[in-house]
Protein backbone atom coordinates (compact mmCIF):
# COMPACT_ATOMS: atom_id res chain seq x y z
CA UNK A 1 0.00 0.00 0.00
CA UNK A 2 1.27 3.43 -0.82
CA UNK A 3 0.51 6.33 1.38
CA UNK A 4 -0.43 9.75 0.18
CA UNK A 5 2.71 11.78 -0.19
CA UNK A 6 2.02 14.14 2.69
CA UNK A 7 -1.37 13.45 4.25
CA UNK A 8 -3.73 15.89 5.84
CA UNK A 9 -2.10 15.75 9.27
CA UNK A 10 1.25 16.91 8.01
CA UNK A 11 -0.47 19.38 5.71
CA UNK A 12 -2.39 21.07 8.51
CA UNK A 13 -0.57 20.46 11.77
CA UNK A 14 3.02 20.41 10.56
CA UNK A 15 3.16 22.45 7.37
CA UNK A 16 6.54 23.05 5.79
CA UNK A 17 8.00 24.72 2.74
CA UNK A 18 7.69 21.39 0.94
CA UNK A 19 3.99 20.92 1.63
CA UNK A 20 3.37 24.51 0.57
CA UNK A 21 5.34 23.99 -2.63
CA UNK A 22 3.34 20.83 -3.37
CA UNK A 23 0.12 22.80 -2.82
CA UNK A 24 1.31 25.50 -5.24
CA UNK A 25 2.09 22.90 -7.90
CA UNK A 26 -1.34 21.26 -7.53
CA UNK A 27 -2.81 24.77 -7.73
CA UNK A 28 -0.92 25.49 -10.97
CA UNK A 29 -2.53 22.45 -12.59
CA UNK A 30 -5.92 23.41 -11.18
CA UNK A 31 -5.71 27.00 -12.47
CA UNK A 32 -4.38 25.95 -15.86
CA UNK A 33 -7.23 23.45 -16.34
CA UNK A 34 -9.86 25.99 -15.27
CA UNK A 35 -8.55 28.62 -17.66
CA UNK A 36 -8.27 26.20 -20.59
CA UNK A 37 -11.90 25.22 -20.00
CA UNK A 38 -12.93 28.86 -20.30
CA UNK A 39 -13.64 29.42 -16.62
CA UNK A 40 -11.72 32.68 -16.61
CA UNK A 41 -14.85 34.15 -18.20
CA UNK A 42 -17.95 34.94 -16.13
CA UNK A 43 -20.08 34.98 -19.28
CA UNK A 44 -19.09 31.40 -20.01
CA UNK A 45 -19.69 30.33 -16.42
CA UNK A 46 -23.15 31.90 -16.44
CA UNK A 47 -24.03 30.04 -19.65
CA UNK A 48 -25.17 26.91 -17.84
CA UNK A 49 -28.00 28.79 -16.12
CA UNK A 50 -29.47 29.86 -19.47
CA UNK A 51 -28.76 26.61 -21.34
CA UNK A 52 -26.76 28.48 -23.98
CA UNK A 53 -23.33 27.16 -22.92
CA UNK A 54 -23.21 24.02 -20.80
CA UNK A 55 -19.41 23.98 -20.46
CA UNK A 56 -19.63 24.08 -16.65
CA UNK A 57 -21.63 20.86 -16.59
CA UNK A 58 -19.35 19.10 -19.07
CA UNK A 59 -16.11 20.09 -17.37
CA UNK A 60 -17.32 19.59 -13.82
CA UNK A 61 -18.89 16.19 -14.39
CA UNK A 62 -15.91 14.96 -16.40
CA UNK A 63 -13.56 16.09 -13.63
CA UNK A 64 -15.76 14.51 -10.96
CA UNK A 65 -15.91 11.17 -12.76
CA UNK A 66 -12.19 11.19 -13.55
CA UNK A 67 -11.26 11.73 -9.91
CA UNK A 68 -14.03 9.45 -8.62
CA UNK A 69 -13.07 6.53 -10.86
CA UNK A 70 -9.36 7.20 -10.33
CA UNK A 71 -9.79 7.10 -6.56
CA UNK A 72 -11.99 4.03 -6.76
CA UNK A 73 -9.36 2.25 -8.84
CA UNK A 74 -6.65 3.20 -6.38
CA UNK A 75 -8.77 1.83 -3.52
CA UNK A 76 -9.90 -1.30 -5.37
CA UNK A 77 -6.35 -2.19 -6.35
CA UNK A 78 -5.35 -1.78 -2.72
CA UNK A 79 -2.83 0.96 -3.43
CA UNK A 80 -4.30 3.30 -0.92
CA UNK A 81 -6.72 3.08 1.96
CA UNK A 82 -8.74 6.16 1.18
CA UNK A 83 -10.70 6.35 4.38
CA UNK A 84 -7.69 6.51 6.62
CA UNK A 85 -5.44 8.62 4.43
CA UNK A 86 -7.52 11.21 2.69
CA UNK A 87 -9.49 13.90 4.47
CA UNK A 88 -13.16 13.23 3.80
CA UNK A 89 -15.58 16.09 4.21
CA UNK A 90 -18.13 15.39 6.93
CA UNK A 91 -21.78 15.50 6.00
CA UNK A 92 -23.91 18.16 7.68
CA UNK A 93 -27.06 18.22 5.62
CA UNK A 94 -28.73 21.33 7.10
CA UNK A 95 -25.69 23.58 6.64
CA UNK A 96 -24.89 22.11 3.23
CA UNK A 97 -28.45 22.48 1.90
CA UNK A 98 -28.92 26.07 3.11
CA UNK A 99 -25.34 26.95 2.16
CA UNK A 100 -25.75 25.38 -1.27
CA UNK A 101 -28.94 27.27 -2.06
CA UNK A 102 -27.45 30.62 -0.99
CA UNK A 103 -24.25 29.80 -2.85
CA UNK A 104 -26.25 29.06 -6.01
CA UNK A 105 -27.98 32.44 -5.89
CA UNK A 106 -24.63 34.18 -5.32
CA UNK A 107 -23.09 32.15 -8.12
CA UNK A 108 -25.68 33.24 -10.70
CA UNK A 109 -25.66 36.89 -9.55
CA UNK A 110 -21.89 37.21 -9.80
CA UNK A 111 -21.26 34.40 -12.30
CA UNK A 112 -18.14 33.54 -10.33
CA UNK A 113 -17.13 31.10 -7.65
CA UNK A 114 -13.95 31.47 -5.57
CA UNK A 115 -11.74 29.13 -7.64
CA UNK A 116 -12.81 30.41 -11.02
CA UNK A 117 -12.52 34.02 -9.80
CA UNK A 118 -8.81 33.42 -9.12
CA UNK A 119 -8.47 32.49 -12.78
CA UNK A 120 -10.76 35.34 -13.85
CA UNK A 121 -8.57 37.75 -11.91
CA UNK A 122 -5.53 36.30 -13.69
CA UNK A 123 -7.34 36.97 -16.97
CA UNK A 124 -7.80 40.62 -16.04
CA UNK A 125 -11.50 40.51 -15.20
CA UNK A 126 -12.37 43.38 -12.90
CA UNK A 127 -15.68 41.75 -11.98
CA UNK A 128 -13.70 38.79 -10.57
CA UNK A 129 -11.73 41.14 -8.30
CA UNK A 130 -14.90 42.84 -7.08
CA UNK A 131 -16.49 39.43 -6.54
CA UNK A 132 -13.56 38.28 -4.37
CA UNK A 133 -13.84 41.44 -2.26
CA UNK A 134 -17.51 40.56 -1.84
CA UNK A 135 -16.64 37.01 -0.78
CA UNK A 136 -14.32 38.32 1.94
CA UNK A 137 -17.06 40.66 3.14
CA UNK A 138 -19.47 37.71 3.12
CA UNK A 139 -17.22 35.67 5.40
CA UNK A 140 -17.05 38.61 7.84
CA UNK A 141 -20.85 38.89 7.71
CA UNK A 142 -21.00 35.18 8.53
CA UNK A 143 -18.64 35.60 11.46
CA UNK A 144 -20.66 38.52 12.81
CA UNK A 145 -23.97 36.68 12.46
CA UNK A 146 -22.65 33.28 13.45
CA UNK A 147 -25.48 32.72 15.95
CA UNK A 148 -28.05 33.07 13.18
CA UNK A 149 -27.19 29.76 11.55
CA UNK A 150 -25.33 28.06 14.41
CA UNK A 151 -28.38 25.80 14.81
CA UNK A 152 -27.64 24.31 11.37
CA UNK A 153 -24.21 23.22 12.47
CA UNK A 154 -23.46 20.08 14.40
CA UNK A 155 -20.95 17.34 14.65
CA UNK A 156 -21.18 16.11 11.09
CA UNK A 157 -20.51 12.54 10.11
CA UNK A 158 -18.60 10.88 7.31
CA UNK A 159 -21.29 9.48 5.05
CA UNK A 160 -20.43 8.15 1.63
CA UNK A 161 -22.19 6.92 -1.49
CA UNK A 162 -25.65 7.06 0.11
CA UNK A 163 -25.23 3.57 1.49
CA UNK A 164 -24.32 2.01 -1.88
CA UNK A 165 -20.97 0.44 -2.57
CA UNK A 166 -18.35 2.81 -3.96
CA UNK A 167 -18.24 0.95 -7.27
CA UNK A 168 -21.99 0.86 -7.80
CA UNK A 169 -22.39 4.53 -6.96
CA UNK A 170 -19.55 5.50 -9.30
CA UNK A 171 -21.09 3.45 -12.10
CA UNK A 172 -24.54 5.00 -11.65
CA UNK A 173 -22.99 8.45 -11.44
CA UNK A 174 -21.01 7.84 -14.64
CA UNK A 175 -24.12 6.70 -16.52
CA UNK A 176 -26.02 9.75 -15.28
CA UNK A 177 -23.16 12.03 -16.33
CA UNK A 178 -22.98 10.56 -19.84
CA UNK A 179 -26.72 11.16 -20.11
CA UNK A 180 -26.15 14.72 -18.90
CA UNK A 181 -23.42 15.26 -21.52
CA UNK A 182 -25.83 14.35 -24.33
CA UNK A 183 -28.57 16.45 -22.78
CA UNK A 184 -26.12 19.38 -22.57
CA UNK A 185 -25.11 19.05 -26.21
CA UNK A 186 -28.72 18.69 -27.30
CA UNK A 187 -30.00 21.71 -25.40
CA UNK A 188 -27.07 23.89 -26.51
CA UNK A 189 -27.99 23.13 -30.09
CA UNK A 190 -31.68 23.73 -29.42
CA UNK A 191 -31.17 27.06 -27.63
CA UNK A 192 -28.66 27.94 -30.29
CA UNK A 193 -26.47 30.17 -28.15
CA UNK A 194 -22.94 31.27 -28.91
CA UNK A 195 -23.16 31.82 -32.63
CA UNK A 196 -24.58 28.37 -33.31
CA UNK A 197 -21.41 26.59 -32.25
CA UNK A 198 -23.12 25.06 -29.21
CA UNK A 199 -23.80 21.35 -29.15
CA UNK A 200 -21.11 20.60 -31.66
CA UNK A 201 -20.22 17.29 -29.99
CA UNK A 202 -23.79 15.97 -30.13
CA UNK A 203 -23.23 13.58 -33.03
CA UNK A 204 -19.44 13.50 -32.85
CA UNK A 205 -17.38 10.33 -32.80
CA UNK A 206 -15.38 11.97 -30.07
CA UNK A 207 -18.21 12.12 -27.52
CA UNK A 208 -19.29 8.58 -28.37
CA UNK A 209 -15.78 7.22 -27.82
CA UNK A 210 -15.30 9.37 -24.71
CA UNK A 211 -18.57 8.17 -23.18
CA UNK A 212 -17.74 4.57 -24.01
CA UNK A 213 -14.33 4.77 -22.33
CA UNK A 214 -15.86 6.32 -19.19
CA UNK A 215 -18.50 3.60 -18.99
CA UNK A 216 -15.95 0.82 -19.55
CA UNK A 217 -13.73 2.16 -16.76
CA UNK A 218 -16.75 2.55 -14.47
CA UNK A 219 -17.85 -1.03 -15.14
CA UNK A 220 -14.32 -2.25 -14.48
CA UNK A 221 -14.25 -0.39 -11.17
CA UNK A 222 -17.64 -1.88 -10.32
CA UNK A 223 -16.54 -5.44 -11.09
CA UNK A 224 -13.28 -5.17 -9.15
CA UNK A 225 -13.67 -6.20 -5.52
CA UNK A 226 -14.79 -3.13 -3.67
CA UNK A 227 -14.45 -1.78 -0.24
CA UNK A 228 -17.96 -0.89 0.85
CA UNK A 229 -18.60 2.69 1.78
CA UNK A 230 -20.66 3.83 4.74
CA UNK A 231 -22.37 0.45 5.14
CA UNK A 232 -19.07 -1.27 5.77
CA UNK A 233 -18.09 1.16 8.47
CA UNK A 234 -21.20 0.38 10.49
CA UNK A 235 -20.82 -3.40 10.28
CA UNK A 236 -17.15 -3.22 11.15
CA UNK A 237 -18.19 -1.35 14.28
CA UNK A 238 -20.80 -3.91 15.30
CA UNK A 239 -18.53 -6.91 14.94
CA UNK A 240 -15.90 -5.34 17.12
CA UNK A 241 -17.98 -5.09 20.30
CA UNK A 242 -16.55 -8.34 21.63
CA UNK A 243 -13.05 -7.31 20.70
CA UNK A 244 -13.62 -4.00 22.42
CA UNK A 245 -14.57 -5.66 25.70
CA UNK A 246 -11.59 -7.95 25.45
CA UNK A 247 -9.32 -4.99 24.87
CA UNK A 248 -10.83 -3.26 27.92
CA UNK A 249 -10.26 -6.34 30.06
CA UNK A 250 -6.66 -6.65 29.02
CA UNK A 251 -6.09 -2.89 29.42
CA UNK A 252 -4.74 -2.99 25.89
CA UNK A 253 -6.37 0.37 25.33
CA UNK A 254 -4.06 2.10 27.82
CA UNK A 255 -0.76 3.76 27.24
CA UNK A 256 1.54 4.38 30.19
CA UNK A 257 2.88 7.90 30.69
CA UNK A 258 6.49 6.73 30.38
CA UNK A 259 5.77 5.10 27.03
CA UNK A 260 4.01 8.23 25.78
CA UNK A 261 6.86 10.47 26.94
CA UNK A 262 9.41 8.34 25.10
CA UNK A 263 7.24 8.14 21.97
CA UNK A 264 6.85 11.93 21.91
CA UNK A 265 10.55 12.50 22.49
CA UNK A 266 11.48 10.12 19.72
CA UNK A 267 9.10 11.96 17.41
CA UNK A 268 7.02 8.86 16.67
CA UNK A 269 5.46 9.12 13.23
CA UNK A 270 1.66 9.42 13.10
CA UNK A 271 1.29 9.82 16.85
CA UNK A 272 -1.60 12.14 17.71
CA UNK A 273 -1.99 13.21 21.33
CA UNK A 274 -5.39 14.74 22.03
CA UNK A 275 -6.22 16.81 25.10
CA UNK A 276 -9.99 16.62 25.57
CA UNK A 277 -10.14 19.07 28.50
CA UNK A 278 -11.73 22.54 28.16
CA UNK A 279 -9.57 25.08 26.26
CA UNK A 280 -8.82 27.06 29.42
CA UNK A 281 -7.21 24.09 31.13
CA UNK A 282 -5.37 23.23 27.95
CA UNK A 283 -3.94 26.74 27.78
CA UNK A 284 -2.84 26.61 31.41
CA UNK A 285 -0.82 23.47 30.80
CA UNK A 286 -0.83 20.59 28.37
CA UNK A 287 1.54 17.88 27.29
CA UNK A 288 3.74 19.52 24.67
CA UNK A 289 2.73 18.29 21.25
CA UNK A 290 -0.88 17.63 22.27
CA UNK A 291 -3.76 19.21 20.41
CA UNK A 292 -6.90 20.45 22.14
CA UNK A 293 -10.08 18.97 20.69
CA UNK A 294 -13.44 19.22 22.49
CA UNK A 295 -15.16 15.85 22.86
CA UNK A 296 -17.99 16.98 20.61
CA UNK A 297 -15.60 17.53 17.71
CA UNK A 298 -13.46 14.47 18.29
CA UNK A 299 -15.02 12.24 15.64
CA UNK A 300 -14.62 14.86 12.92
CA UNK A 301 -11.13 15.71 13.98
CA UNK A 302 -9.91 12.14 14.15
CA UNK A 303 -11.56 10.95 10.93
CA UNK A 304 -8.33 11.37 8.91
CA UNK A 305 -6.32 9.42 11.50
CA UNK A 306 -8.56 6.38 11.59
CA UNK A 307 -6.39 3.30 11.99
CA UNK A 308 -3.32 5.25 10.99
CA UNK A 309 -0.66 5.58 13.63
CA UNK A 310 -1.62 5.92 17.30
CA UNK A 311 -4.16 8.29 18.80
CA UNK A 312 -3.75 8.99 22.52
CA UNK A 313 -6.56 10.67 24.46
CA UNK A 314 -6.11 12.25 27.85
CA UNK A 315 -8.05 14.38 30.28
CA UNK A 316 -7.80 15.06 34.00
CA UNK A 317 -9.16 11.64 34.82
CA UNK A 318 -9.95 8.55 32.83
CA UNK A 319 -13.73 8.70 32.37
CA UNK A 320 -14.03 11.03 29.40
CA UNK A 321 -11.21 9.48 27.39
CA UNK A 322 -12.63 6.00 28.08
CA UNK A 323 -16.09 6.99 26.92
CA UNK A 324 -14.69 8.71 23.84
CA UNK A 325 -12.53 5.71 23.12
CA UNK A 326 -15.59 3.41 23.21
CA UNK A 327 -17.48 5.62 20.79
CA UNK A 328 -14.50 5.72 18.44
CA UNK A 329 -14.02 1.95 18.67
CA UNK A 330 -17.65 1.49 17.60
CA UNK A 331 -16.91 3.64 14.56
CA UNK A 332 -14.12 1.27 13.62
CA UNK A 333 -11.15 3.08 15.19
CA UNK A 334 -8.68 0.49 16.42
CA UNK A 335 -5.82 2.84 17.13
CA UNK A 336 -7.14 4.89 20.05
CA UNK A 337 -5.44 4.67 23.43
CA UNK A 338 -5.96 6.53 26.67
CA UNK A 339 -3.27 7.81 28.90
CA UNK A 340 -3.18 5.95 32.22
CA UNK A 341 -4.17 8.32 35.05
CA UNK A 342 -4.57 11.20 32.60
CA UNK A 343 -2.49 14.33 32.72
CA UNK A 344 -1.90 13.89 36.44
CA UNK A 345 -0.27 10.56 35.77
CA UNK A 346 1.99 12.16 33.21
CA UNK A 347 2.95 14.94 35.61
CA UNK A 348 3.53 12.62 38.58
CA UNK A 349 5.36 9.89 36.79
CA UNK A 350 7.33 11.74 34.14
CA UNK A 351 7.70 15.38 35.03
CA UNK A 352 7.78 15.58 38.82
CA UNK A 353 11.32 16.48 39.83
CA UNK A 354 13.28 13.63 41.34
CA UNK A 355 13.98 15.76 44.39
CA UNK A 356 10.29 16.15 45.20
CA UNK A 357 9.44 12.50 45.10
CA UNK A 358 8.44 10.74 48.26
CA UNK A 359 10.39 7.62 47.42
CA UNK A 360 13.87 7.82 45.98
CA UNK A 361 14.13 6.69 42.39
CA UNK A 362 16.78 4.31 41.16
CA UNK A 363 19.37 6.24 39.17
CA UNK A 364 18.43 5.00 35.65
CA UNK A 365 14.82 6.03 36.31
CA UNK A 366 15.92 9.37 37.77
CA UNK A 367 17.98 9.99 34.67
CA UNK A 368 14.95 9.33 32.45
CA UNK A 369 12.94 11.83 34.48
CA UNK A 370 15.65 14.45 34.00
CA UNK A 371 15.70 13.83 30.27
CA UNK A 372 11.92 14.07 30.06
CA UNK A 373 11.89 17.28 32.11
CA UNK A 374 14.53 18.80 29.89
CA UNK A 375 12.57 17.84 26.83
CA UNK A 376 9.04 18.74 27.92
CA UNK A 377 9.71 21.65 30.25
CA UNK A 378 13.01 22.91 28.94
CA UNK A 379 14.49 22.80 32.46
CA UNK A 380 17.24 20.87 34.22
CA UNK A 381 19.47 21.12 31.12
CA UNK A 382 20.26 17.44 31.57
CA UNK A 383 22.33 18.29 34.63
CA UNK A 384 21.31 16.85 37.97
CA UNK A 385 19.28 19.37 39.93
CA UNK A 386 21.07 20.48 43.06
CA UNK A 387 18.98 19.13 45.87
CA UNK A 388 17.54 21.63 48.31
CA UNK A 389 16.69 23.93 45.44
CA UNK A 390 13.66 22.30 43.92
CA UNK A 391 12.36 23.65 40.67
CA UNK A 392 9.08 25.40 40.67
CA UNK A 393 6.67 22.63 39.92
CA UNK A 394 4.41 24.15 37.33
CA UNK A 395 1.40 22.18 36.22
Amino acid at each position, binding site marked *: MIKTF*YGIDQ*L*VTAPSARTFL*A*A*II*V*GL*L*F*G*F*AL*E*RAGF*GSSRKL*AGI*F*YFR*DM*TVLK*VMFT*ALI*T*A*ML*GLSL*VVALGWNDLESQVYI*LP*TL*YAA*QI*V*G*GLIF*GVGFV*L*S*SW*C*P*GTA*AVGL*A*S*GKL*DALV*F*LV*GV*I*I*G*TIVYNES*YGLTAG*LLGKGTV*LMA*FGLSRGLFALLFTLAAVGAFYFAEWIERRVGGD*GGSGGKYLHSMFLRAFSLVLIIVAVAVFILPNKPGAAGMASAGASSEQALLEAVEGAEDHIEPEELADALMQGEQDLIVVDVRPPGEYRAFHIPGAVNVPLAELIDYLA*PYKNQGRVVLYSNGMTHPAQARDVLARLGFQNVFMLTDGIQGFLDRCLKPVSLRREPLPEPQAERVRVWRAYFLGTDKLAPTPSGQPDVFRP
Partner: protein
Amino acid sequence: MNENPNAKVAEGDGSPKPYWNPYLAGLLLGGALLASFLILGAGLGASAVPIRCGALLENLVAPAHTQASEFFGQKYLADGANPLRYYLVFMFVGTFLGGLFSAVLARRMNFCVERGKAFGAVPRLVLAIAGGILVGYASALAGGCTSGQALTGGALLANGSIVFMLCVFAGGYAAAYFVRRQWHD
Protein backbone atom coordinates in the same frame (compact mmCIF):
# COMPACT_ATOMS: atom_id res chain seq x y z
CA MET B 1 -15.17 30.48 -30.70
CA ASN B 2 -14.75 33.35 -28.38
CA GLU B 3 -18.00 34.95 -27.42
CA ASN B 4 -16.62 37.57 -25.11
CA PRO B 5 -17.41 40.89 -26.76
CA ASN B 6 -14.74 42.68 -24.75
CA ALA B 7 -12.08 40.26 -25.85
CA LYS B 8 -12.63 41.32 -29.44
CA VAL B 9 -10.77 44.49 -28.56
CA ALA B 10 -7.58 42.43 -28.72
CA GLU B 11 -5.32 43.27 -31.65
CA GLY B 12 -6.04 41.70 -35.02
CA ASP B 13 -3.53 38.88 -35.34
CA GLY B 14 -3.26 38.38 -31.60
CA SER B 15 -6.85 37.29 -31.19
CA PRO B 16 -7.61 34.81 -28.40
CA LYS B 17 -7.24 31.13 -29.13
CA PRO B 18 -10.28 28.89 -28.80
CA TYR B 19 -10.97 27.16 -25.51
CA TRP B 20 -10.13 23.51 -25.09
CA ASN B 21 -12.60 20.77 -25.75
CA PRO B 22 -14.54 20.87 -22.43
CA TYR B 23 -14.31 17.12 -21.90
CA LEU B 24 -10.53 17.18 -22.22
CA ALA B 25 -10.31 20.21 -19.94
CA GLY B 26 -12.45 18.22 -17.50
CA LEU B 27 -10.05 15.29 -17.72
CA LEU B 28 -7.15 17.60 -16.84
CA LEU B 29 -9.14 19.13 -13.98
CA GLY B 30 -9.99 15.66 -12.69
CA GLY B 31 -6.31 14.75 -12.98
CA ALA B 32 -5.40 17.80 -10.88
CA LEU B 33 -7.95 16.73 -8.28
CA LEU B 34 -6.65 13.16 -8.25
CA ALA B 35 -3.07 14.43 -7.92
CA SER B 36 -4.19 16.59 -5.00
CA PHE B 37 -5.70 13.58 -3.23
CA LEU B 38 -2.68 11.38 -3.76
CA ILE B 39 0.01 13.99 -3.09
CA LEU B 40 -1.55 16.17 -0.43
CA GLY B 41 -4.03 13.74 1.11
CA ALA B 42 -6.77 16.31 0.55
CA GLY B 43 -8.68 17.68 -2.40
CA LEU B 44 -8.82 21.10 -4.01
CA GLY B 45 -10.16 24.19 -2.32
CA ALA B 46 -10.50 27.90 -2.85
CA SER B 47 -12.97 29.46 -0.41
CA ALA B 48 -10.61 28.82 2.52
CA VAL B 49 -8.60 31.79 1.25
CA PRO B 50 -11.26 34.54 1.40
CA ILE B 51 -12.39 33.11 4.76
CA ARG B 52 -8.87 33.39 6.09
CA CYS B 53 -8.46 36.86 4.56
CA GLY B 54 -11.71 37.84 6.27
CA ALA B 55 -10.37 36.59 9.61
CA LEU B 56 -7.10 38.46 9.06
CA LEU B 57 -8.78 41.74 8.07
CA GLU B 58 -11.35 41.73 10.84
CA ASN B 59 -8.58 40.91 13.29
CA LEU B 60 -6.63 43.96 12.06
CA VAL B 61 -9.60 46.26 12.59
CA ALA B 62 -10.98 44.84 15.85
CA PRO B 63 -8.56 42.31 17.30
CA ALA B 64 -10.20 41.73 20.69
CA HIS B 65 -13.66 41.36 19.18
CA THR B 66 -12.49 39.05 16.40
CA GLN B 67 -10.44 36.80 18.64
CA ALA B 68 -13.45 36.37 20.90
CA SER B 69 -15.73 35.50 17.96
CA GLU B 70 -16.96 31.95 17.61
CA PHE B 71 -16.05 31.41 13.96
CA PHE B 72 -12.93 33.42 13.11
CA GLY B 73 -11.64 33.49 16.67
CA GLN B 74 -11.93 29.83 17.51
CA LYS B 75 -11.21 28.32 14.13
CA TYR B 76 -8.66 30.59 12.53
CA LEU B 77 -7.04 32.80 15.16
CA ALA B 78 -6.67 30.44 18.14
CA ASP B 79 -3.34 30.69 19.93
CA GLY B 80 -2.22 33.59 17.74
CA ALA B 81 -2.13 31.41 14.62
CA ASN B 82 -1.44 33.10 11.30
CA PRO B 83 -4.53 32.27 9.24
CA LEU B 84 -2.61 32.54 5.97
CA ARG B 85 -0.12 29.83 6.90
CA TYR B 86 -2.29 27.15 5.30
CA TYR B 87 -1.82 24.92 2.29
CA LEU B 88 -4.96 26.13 0.53
CA VAL B 89 -3.62 29.68 0.54
CA PHE B 90 -0.62 28.44 -1.40
CA MET B 91 -2.86 26.40 -3.66
CA PHE B 92 -4.81 29.59 -4.43
CA VAL B 93 -1.59 31.35 -5.41
CA GLY B 94 -0.85 28.40 -7.70
CA THR B 95 -4.36 28.55 -9.16
CA PHE B 96 -3.90 32.23 -9.97
CA LEU B 97 -0.49 31.63 -11.55
CA GLY B 98 -1.71 28.59 -13.51
CA GLY B 99 -4.62 30.65 -14.81
CA LEU B 100 -2.31 33.54 -15.65
CA PHE B 101 0.06 31.24 -17.53
CA SER B 102 -2.78 29.73 -19.52
CA ALA B 103 -4.51 33.07 -20.21
CA VAL B 104 -1.31 34.73 -21.45
CA LEU B 105 -0.44 31.72 -23.60
CA ALA B 106 -3.91 31.73 -25.18
CA ARG B 107 -3.93 35.56 -25.46
CA ARG B 108 -7.02 35.75 -23.28
CA MET B 109 -5.54 38.24 -20.82
CA ASN B 110 -7.82 41.25 -21.14
CA PHE B 111 -8.65 43.95 -18.60
CA CYS B 112 -12.39 44.46 -18.62
CA VAL B 113 -15.66 44.15 -16.75
CA GLU B 114 -17.25 41.18 -18.41
CA ARG B 115 -20.94 41.74 -19.18
CA GLY B 116 -23.56 41.87 -21.94
CA LYS B 117 -23.24 44.85 -24.30
CA ALA B 118 -26.64 46.16 -23.23
CA PHE B 119 -25.71 46.11 -19.52
CA GLY B 120 -23.71 48.76 -17.68
CA ALA B 121 -20.37 48.11 -15.99
CA VAL B 122 -21.52 49.57 -12.66
CA PRO B 123 -24.65 47.42 -12.27
CA ARG B 124 -22.58 44.41 -13.31
CA LEU B 125 -20.07 45.17 -10.54
CA VAL B 126 -22.92 45.62 -8.06
CA LEU B 127 -24.17 42.15 -8.96
CA ALA B 128 -20.63 40.79 -8.70
CA ILE B 129 -20.13 42.13 -5.18
CA ALA B 130 -23.64 41.16 -4.04
CA GLY B 131 -23.14 37.64 -5.39
CA GLY B 132 -19.72 37.59 -3.75
CA ILE B 133 -21.18 38.40 -0.33
CA LEU B 134 -23.71 35.56 -0.69
CA VAL B 135 -21.00 33.17 -1.88
CA GLY B 136 -18.70 34.13 0.99
CA TYR B 137 -21.45 33.66 3.56
CA ALA B 138 -22.54 30.35 2.04
CA SER B 139 -19.00 28.98 1.73
CA ALA B 140 -18.34 29.71 5.39
CA LEU B 141 -21.63 28.05 6.37
CA ALA B 142 -21.30 24.97 4.17
CA GLY B 143 -17.59 24.54 4.79
CA GLY B 144 -16.50 24.92 1.20
CA CYS B 145 -17.36 26.09 -2.29
CA THR B 146 -17.66 24.55 -5.73
CA SER B 147 -14.04 23.37 -5.44
CA GLY B 148 -13.87 22.13 -1.87
CA GLN B 149 -17.41 20.82 -1.50
CA ALA B 150 -18.91 20.04 -4.90
CA LEU B 151 -15.82 18.84 -6.77
CA THR B 152 -13.69 17.38 -3.98
CA GLY B 153 -16.50 16.02 -1.83
CA GLY B 154 -18.33 14.76 -4.90
CA ALA B 155 -15.32 12.77 -6.08
CA LEU B 156 -15.11 11.24 -2.60
CA LEU B 157 -18.82 10.38 -2.83
CA ALA B 158 -19.46 12.36 0.36
CA ASN B 159 -23.25 12.57 0.71
CA GLY B 160 -23.39 16.13 2.01
CA SER B 161 -21.12 17.44 -0.75
CA ILE B 162 -23.29 15.90 -3.47
CA VAL B 163 -26.38 17.41 -1.85
CA PHE B 164 -24.53 20.75 -1.68
CA MET B 165 -23.80 20.59 -5.41
CA LEU B 166 -27.43 19.87 -6.28
CA CYS B 167 -28.53 22.78 -4.07
CA VAL B 168 -26.07 25.13 -5.80
CA PHE B 169 -27.69 24.36 -9.12
CA ALA B 170 -31.18 24.61 -7.62
CA GLY B 171 -30.40 28.04 -6.15
CA GLY B 172 -28.72 29.16 -9.36
CA TYR B 173 -31.56 28.15 -11.66
CA ALA B 174 -34.12 29.67 -9.29
CA ALA B 175 -32.43 33.08 -9.41
CA ALA B 176 -31.10 33.01 -13.00
CA TYR B 177 -34.17 34.60 -14.57
CA PHE B 178 -33.94 37.72 -12.41
CA VAL B 179 -30.38 38.59 -13.41
CA ARG B 180 -30.51 37.46 -17.05
CA ARG B 181 -30.18 41.03 -18.39
CA GLN B 182 -26.54 41.29 -17.38
CA TRP B 183 -25.73 39.03 -20.34
CA HIS B 184 -28.03 40.63 -22.91
CA ASP B 185 -26.12 42.01 -25.89
